[in-house]
């Protein structure tokens, strides 16, 4: 009797372990499969130039996806990151060019302030946007979905108001280097993405703050009872995603040599898709940076491979949508199994 019971228990354990394993490694495995398939179907897929191209494309949204991972781990969401990118990009551009009037000097290379000030402006605006939303979520108790939906509209509106609708372009070479430059063949945005991913991974896995992010996402009430300041943790994750949106906005404006109010339109959905496909649970408390990097690469590789194979971009959207829903369906299934 006992033996049967324990054997059944063991089988249940194994099934649970399999589900957990898949939840954790589905994205990297699917990524490897895609790379294999595309490299067989197209000779240039693995060409170093194409590889660098994919990496450079994913690194900007990847930066924000890293911040989004923190937010989703606490069971939150940030829908405003695309609008934050527009606002922060403009902030960097105006500071670099030395003032608001520069919007009328389209295309003229004109040095106003040092690049470092432009970076700081983008970061400060991003962090401020995150802080405002964080306060609304933790103090006014408005659900993150609603707060950041408001942010999505409001920050875009501010960007449009600030820019008067037109782009700001023509930066100095030491500005555009951050988006277009290379260090030993590797594009600068890729290096930034890798460095930030490593730091974020260390913070999440090996620091007290990282543990508290997981604890708040797992059981906020329990975290509070054990002396963790859940409000502070929640507030900080929105500041972190704001910081990274600001950084990404600066790099994007450097790469395009232009900042405009419509930058990053719809970006939030791609980013949330990448994080969720990477195995971070929308229910909070489960996931990590490794999965997010895999999720970001997966979407980037899929887009690139389909372009190489001349598949229409409309079809790409359908495929990414289907994969997203499948990933969330699996997340639901895994959450029930964990239950």
């Amino acid at each position: 009797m006992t033996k049967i019971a324990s054997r059944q228990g063991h089988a249940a354990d194994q099934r649970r372990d399999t589900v957990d394993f898949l939840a954790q490694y589905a994205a990297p495995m699917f990524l490897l499969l895609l790379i294999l398939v595309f490299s067989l179907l197209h000779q240039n897929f693995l060409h170093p130039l194409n590889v660098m191209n994919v990496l450079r494309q994913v690194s900007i949204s990847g930066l924000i996806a890293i911040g989004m991972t923190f937010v989703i781990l606490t069971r939150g969401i940030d829908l405003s990151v695309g609008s934050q990118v527009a606002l922060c990009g403009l902030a960097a551009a105006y500071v670099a060019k030395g003032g608001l009037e520069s919007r009328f000097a389209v295309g003229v290379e004109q040095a106003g302030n040092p690049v470092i000030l432009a970076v700081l402006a983008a970061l400060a605006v991003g962090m401020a946007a995150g802080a405002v939303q964080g306060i609304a979520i933790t103090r006014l108790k408005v659900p993150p979905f609603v707060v950041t939906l408001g942010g999505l509209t409001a920050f875009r509106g501010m960007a449009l108001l600030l820019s008067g609708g037109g782009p700001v372009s023509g930066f100095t070479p030491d500005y555009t280097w951050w988006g277009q430059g290379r260090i030993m063949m590797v594009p600068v945005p890729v290096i930034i993405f890798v460095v930030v991913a490593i730091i974020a991974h260390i913070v999440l896995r090996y620091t007290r703050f990282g543990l508290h992010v997981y604890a708040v996402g797992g059981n906020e009430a329990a975290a509070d009872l054990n002396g963790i300041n859940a409000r502070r943790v929640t507030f900080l994750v929105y500041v972190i995603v704001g910081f990274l949106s600001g950084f990404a906005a600066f790099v994007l404006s450097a790469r395009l040599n232009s900042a405009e109010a419509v930058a990053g339109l719809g970006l939030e959905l791609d980013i949330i898709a990448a994080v969720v496909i990477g195995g971070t649970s929308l229910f909070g408390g489960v996931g990590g940076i490794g999965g997010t990097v895999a999720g970001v690469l997966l979407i980037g590789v899929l887009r690139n491979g389909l372009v190489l194979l001349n598949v229409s971009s409309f079809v790409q959207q359908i495929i990414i949508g289907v994969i997203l829903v499948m990933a969330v369906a699996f997340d639901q299934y895994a959450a029930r199994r964990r239950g």
Partner: protein
Amino acid sequence: MAILELSGVSKHFGAIEALNGIDLSLERGEALGLMGDNGAGKSTLVKIIAGTFPPSMGRIVLDGEEVRFARPVEARQKGIEIIYQDLALCDNLSAALNVFLGRELIRKIGPCRFLDRTAMNARAAEIFAELKSETRPRDLVKHMSGGQRQAVAIARTRLVDPKIVLMDEPTAAISVRQVAEVLDLIRHLKTTGHTVILISHRTPDVFSVCDRVAVLRRGRKVADKPIADSSPEEVTGLITGAIEGA
């Protein structure tokens, strides 16, 4: 000298009087069973001692020092450990991390401070062995049985040398075999000289591990006597009101 002394503790929520003039005294190493029907005021009393909210009136003296807590962390710092009814565990974390949640062990590397998982796993393993529990430090709490989860919550109280351990309905939602394990753990706490307040609905549990029983009814203490001088029948009568007071 009493380790915990409550005098005239009352709590109002608006017009509702949850507790009315409670006096309670606990000696070191004593186990008190706190009993009462739903709404009798047990949880309110526990929350006052645990620091969830302060009393409307009355004094709390802990180990000779008058205390007034605004947050649970303050009570914890003064040596009052609580095991919550729902255990306050994070399912997504390992047993060891749950034990150390909010009190993590830290290792410094240069200016950086990192979690010392090795030390936390080792210390948690020691505590589980002490508690004679099979719980493994690295296992995720979501994979654990009710008894193992209890052990994790109890292990938290062993990180420090607490003056008082409050247990809120620890046996409410677990199987018979696991109840026995929890009662063993309470006996273990007593043998190590800890004062325990056990809040329970279950008369058999209180009679098997406690030294004294106090009964609350409608916010008042209606009885407080040694277990030896009482009986399960009397306590049941006191809880329901069939017996007025003892």
